């Protein structure tokens, strides 16, 4: 097995262009064609000179790649080396999820080649002696099993991955808040429980490549783990932490129970919602620290409870927070970590104050002047939930019914549970079978989020499930029998009429 693998690797190496001894720089015509395309599509962010000094660069985080730096994160080459042409191609073709770099599936192969040749003119290294990088081998992946995953976990711990990525892989390791990249920007370790956010790709090969090459410029080093089986075991472990794709929901089902407790919550399936930055009110133009939130809901005869869970790098319980705090408009992006403890983590659930008539709903950003919203708000620095009424993002005031709150932070994950009386005069009720519009907001104190600078969702629904569902057996039997009768009837009729024929 091993032999076959290394044979294959040798063959692959022999076929690779690196042996040609000359870096592939393309013809002048190709580079010129690449330049035209680059200036039309890429220069907005990566800069006319490839130095990421461009109009778009100021607004995108992570910042666009500076091609003149000769530092590239996504490679199949040894740490510190330049990327291969195929690496650049892959980055262009597939883009990077959750960054400003989109995939470019419409570009032709020739277009991408031309772009690669042109991009390589920005740094002299590409045409120099380093222009022929040393590739790593990616052997064929062995099959996955429970053992390899368990072994992967051991490798994960042995190699101190937990220091940054955290014990649960949620990106909440003890050194995570201190990490910065080569340009002194704060950088977060990847949340391994959300594989779809991996910028270097989320297939097994992609993950293998990531930790074998390291991500140059970032604190992620290259690992040389031996034996090779252990490398794949680590991959298998990471893959086992999450699904391929986020299973985003459109509704939370509030399950009827007799008593609200943790066991009941654990028994209900969670609904996952994507959190995105607030893009409307002043305080927009930032990137939220939280990317998704998970919700569960329960109802009893007189109570309703919503449990929210989300991954946070660090629990900020110092300072304070609120949905109505003013935001400094000029501040666009927190370049360095803000650990001053000014803002605490916070979360809010939003419902319309009154059941909307028809399809018209309050504006999703804390309501509007005409229709208000209820905010169930928890400043996680404190032990109690607060109720706010919102008539627009600039018009939020405390008030409304009492809320119960339980919140805890454990291994990179916040869990906050709100409870409220099921029916409160003047506020939205949770009638059986109703779809109650709901939206969520979450503030990451570490990211200096407060007031309107927050991660949010637009409207989704809480479906209040019916406690006693009618048994389907009766109608099933009834309709089935009727159909049978009809069939037999037709048959009898046909036989009688045509049996002579």
């Amino acid at each position, binding site marked *: 097995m091993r032999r076959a693998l290394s044979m294959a690797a040798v063959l692959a190496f022999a076929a690779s262009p690196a042996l040609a001894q000359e870096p592939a720089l393309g013809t002048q015509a190709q580079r010129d064609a690449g330049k035209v395309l680059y200036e039309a599509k890429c220069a907005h962010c990566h800069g006319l000179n490839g130095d990421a000094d461009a109009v778009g660069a100021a607004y*995108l985080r992570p910042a666009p790649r500076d091609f003149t730096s000769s530092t590239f994160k996504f490679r199949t080459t040894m740490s510190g080396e330049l990327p291969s042409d195929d690496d650049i191609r892959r980055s262009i073709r597939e883009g990077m999820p959750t*960054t*400003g770099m989109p995939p470019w599936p419409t570009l032709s192969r020739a277009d991408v080649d031309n772009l690669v040749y042109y991009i390589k003119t920005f740094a002299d290294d590409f045409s120099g002696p380093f222009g022929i990088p040393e590739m790593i081998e990616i052997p064929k992946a062995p099959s996955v099993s429970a053992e390899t995953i368990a072994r992967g976990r051991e490798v994960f711990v042995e190699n101190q991955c937990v220091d940054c990525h955290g014990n649960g892989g949620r990106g909440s390791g003890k050194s995570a808040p201190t990490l910065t990249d080569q340009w002194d920007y704060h950088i977060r370790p990847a949340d391994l429980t959300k594989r779809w956010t991996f910028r270097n790709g989320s297939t097994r090969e992609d993950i293998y490549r990531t930790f074998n090459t390291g991500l140059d410029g970032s604190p992620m080093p290259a690992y040389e783990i031996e034996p090779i089986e252990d490398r794949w075991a680590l991959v298998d472990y990471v893959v086992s932490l999450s699904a391929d794709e986020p299973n985003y929901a*459109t509704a939370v*089902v509030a399950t009827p129970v007799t008593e609200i407790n943790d066991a009941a919550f654990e028994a209900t399936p969670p609904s996952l919602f994507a959190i995105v930055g607030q893009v409307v009110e002043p305080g927009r133009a930032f990137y939220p620290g939280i990317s998704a939130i998970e919700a569960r809901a329960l109802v009893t005869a007189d109570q309703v409870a919503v449990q929210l869970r989300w991954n946070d790098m660090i629990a900020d319980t110092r300072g304070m927070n609120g949905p109505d705090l003013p935001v400094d408009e000029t501040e666009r992006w927190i370049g360095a970590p803000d650990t001053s403890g000014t803002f605490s983590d916070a979360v809010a659930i939003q419902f319309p104050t009154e059941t909307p008539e028809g399809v018209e709903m309050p504006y999703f950003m804390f309501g509007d002047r005409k229709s208000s919203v209820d905010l169930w708000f928890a400043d996680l620095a404190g032990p109690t939930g607060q109720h706010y009424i919102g008539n627009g993002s600039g018009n939020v005031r405390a008030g409304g019914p009492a809320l119960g709150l339980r919140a805890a932070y454990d291994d990179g994950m916040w869990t906050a549970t709100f409870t409220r009386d099921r029916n409160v005069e003047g506020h939205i009720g949770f009638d059986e079978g109703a779809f109650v519009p709901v939206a969520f907001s979450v503030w990451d104190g570490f990211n200096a989020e407060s007031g309107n600078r927050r991660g949010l969702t637009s409207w989704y629904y809480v*479906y209040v499930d019916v406690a006693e569902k009618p048994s389907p057996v009766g109608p099933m039997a009834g*309709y089935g029998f009727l159909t049978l009768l009809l069939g037999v009837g037709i048959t009898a009729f046909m036989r009688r009429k045509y049996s002579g024929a």
Partner: protein
Amino acid sequence: MNVLVILAIIAVMVALRFLKPTIVVWAIAWWFAVFAMANYGIDPPVPTSVTNMFMAIVTIALLAYVTAAEGRMREAGESLVAFFTSKKYFIPLVIMLVAVPLLVAFNVYSSMTTQPAPPAAGRTIHPPPPATVSFKGRTVDLNNDVNPYRHLEDDDSEAFAQHVDNGRRVYYENCVYCHGDNMAGDGHFAHGFNPIPANFQDPTTIAMLQEGYLFWRIAKGGPGLPVESTPWASAMPAWELFLSEEEIWDVILFLYDFTDQRPRAREVHE
């Protein structure tokens, strides 16, 4: 497109040809072939509303075919009668008599046990714009006001380039988060919104519209959508709160410039 399913459907139809079945079997086979094609052959699957309509049309067409010739009518009638009366078909008949009620019962079961879907509303994607909008106290006539900088394209390319550049700045400052770097509606935050942000690369969006329409949508955003476009789930901000009129016209120039498209021209009466 799901090539495997399509090939399977074709294979079944070809195989059926060799069996030389009656016209009724053919009609049923065609019906199911189209049904399978719509539901499984096309990826992503066709929404139920459209499948229902397709199947209605196919049903009408098949009925028309069977009844269009006396011979086929007779053949269909005879084979139906044979199916119900002949000994040869006794077992299939019994299977059908049992299977159909079971299918009905299953349908009842699944409709009673699945979670109801959130209220869906057919949104109007391109609602008609008002004739005029008020922009910071000024009335903009959407029908007759053209982009005041569009003419620079022919008159003064340098000034035009400046406006496009300004539009580029406005775009990256405000729009890129959702509409994306490639203007394909796949920005950073796009996945968090429903409806998803407009894809300007799609030739059925901005290329179909006059610039006044874009001005209206940009200036008034989601909150300014007319009732027929409810539910107002659109996260598009009302940019009149943040941008000047010139900035909006400039960013419109940039949208067309970047996507290599041209606004729909005003048509002149002959």
